[in-house]
């Protein structure tokens, strides 16, 4: 369902030119759980951003469900973010002025769906936050905030979930709980691509790709 073909990404020009990704290719089938590993600056987050249409590749193609998405204009990308792809970030990226429930409802509101409250509550319960729906992010722990972010990613029933170091800000125990939640989602049929530098976490993924200096050095 996802195909990354020879993607290269460079920043700057001339002597200040930095190669973030160098001719990277990978494939993911429906239901896959792929971990992308590598040290800081290896290009993992750049790859994830390009897969999700948050950033554009300098060269190469990204194909999602048979459609090229690397060269789409903003309006077409909006459509993909509303259904095809959802994100979970290391810093959670919740809107601090909204409650957990409102944060989960946000994608539905932007899609023009105004009747999603029961669904949003249901998803919050699924991630174990049924009783925290009216709390604002500031009143939640890191693990709880990430659960809200995951619930927000699920509300549009995406075919692919992209997670950028989702456990990076957590202690070992909380991190494993979040990881378990991802594995549960994967068992429920969601495709997941997760960036992490934690080998312990990567072990639980179905497939691991190791990046170094913008190139894939190992696949398992």
């Amino acid at each position, binding site marked *: 369902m996802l195909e990354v073909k020879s993607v290269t990404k460079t920043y700057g020009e001339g002597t200040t030119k930095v190669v973030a990704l160098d001719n990277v290719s990978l494939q993911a089938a429906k239901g896959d759980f792929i971990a992308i590993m590598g040290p800081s600056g290896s290009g993992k987050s750049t790859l994830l951003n390009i897969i999700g249409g*948050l*950033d554009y590749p300098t060269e190469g193609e990204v194909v999602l469900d048979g459609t090229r998405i690397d060269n789409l204009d903003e*309006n077409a990308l909006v459509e993909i973010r509303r259904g095809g792809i959802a994100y979970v*970030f290391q810093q959670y990226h919740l809107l601090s002025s909204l409650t957990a429930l409102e944060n989960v409802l*946000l994608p539905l509101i*932007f899609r023009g769906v105004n009747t999603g409250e029961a669904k949003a509550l249901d998803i919050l319960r699924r991630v174990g936050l049924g009783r925290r729906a009216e709390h604002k992010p500031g009143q939640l722990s890191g693990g709880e905030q990430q659960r809200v972010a995951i619930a927000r990613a699920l509300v549009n029933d995406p075919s692919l979930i992209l997670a950028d170091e989702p456990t990076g800000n957590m202690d070992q125990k909380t991190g494993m709980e979040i990881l378990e939640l991802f594995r549960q989602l994967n068992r429920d049929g969601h495709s997941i691509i997760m960036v992490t530098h934690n080998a312990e976490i990567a072990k639980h993924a179905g497939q691991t790709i190791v990046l170094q200096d913008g190139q894939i050095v190992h696949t398992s």
Partner: protein
Amino acid sequence: MSYAVLGVVIGTMTVIGILTVALAGESRIYAQLEDYGANLVVIPAISQVDLELGGLGLGALIVGENYIPEDKVSQVRQIADDMVNQVLGIEDERYRYTVSVAPKLYANSRVGEVSVMVVGIDPEEEMKIKTWWRIQEGEPLEQADQALIGARASELLELSVDDKIVLNGVSVTVAGILEETGSNDDYQVFVQIETAQEAFDKEGVVSSIDVRALCAACPVEEIADEINMMIPGVRAVAVRQIAMTEMGMMERVNRFMLALAGITLAVGLFGVVNTMMTSVHERIRDIGIMRAVGASRNQIVKVFIYEAIIVGILGGIFGYVAGTLLAYAVGPLIFEGVAVSYVPQYFPLSLILAVLVAAIATLYPAFRATRIRVADSLRSL
């Protein structure tokens, strides 16, 4: 956000304040115009009669031997009425603007040993022109055998209401005494024009005709020209110059103040743009989040426009109140003795102005913020 509201408030406050003061100043000038009474005087073509313009006494009154035939009064009225209504574009008889035309007959006479000026008037028309006339005692002039007496004349002649006086052999009763006006009127005795004509043997003639056509668009000079051309033997003089000068001055002051208001509004707009820039910039990460979860650029811009409308409405309300208060405080310093009053019609104007300023100030930064790549906006902060 509160800084943005403040910026909008300052801008609209200045505009509303200046407009309110300007309106008050204008109505004061119109009020002063009222005091000029007549703004067109028709006199015999070769007479020596000095002009007396309503309340403004311009030197002594000398009555020559020349008079205007009485039938010219209706001609003067016809010309003035037609021209005014033509300029105002009024065709329907019911809504015609009525020009006041007051003929007068002056005669020197004696009451006992005292010499007085007797003036024959059309009481109804005269009262319309001399809006400042107040009767301090008695009744207005209604009957042919009655007289109305100026305040000083009543003292000099030691007359009070219901006393009888004889004017050149004709006996009249004092109906009322005028309040002091500070003009020649105070020394005069007023009777109906027919009474004066009979008493002084001047049937069918008048000394002068005062015309009051007091609207902003009234073509007083043109009316004067028309009368001079159409009616031989009379001279019509427009006395609008004083008023015109003052109105012209007012207009210039108004224009200057509006320019000032415009500049203030522009400066205010700049301030609001600045605060909105900051406000948008602070939320670049939020914008990135919203876009990552499926918000389109238009939806983001809309969010900020809604905010701008709220800022505008708040700014408009406070701007109107502050502007009106400013006008109350500053108005009397600009126009001495001006009565500033709040202008309800400026409230919607204030709202529209404020919302526009806020929306314009927000649109650009919001639009620019949505051009940033999502990955970059998420990386900020």
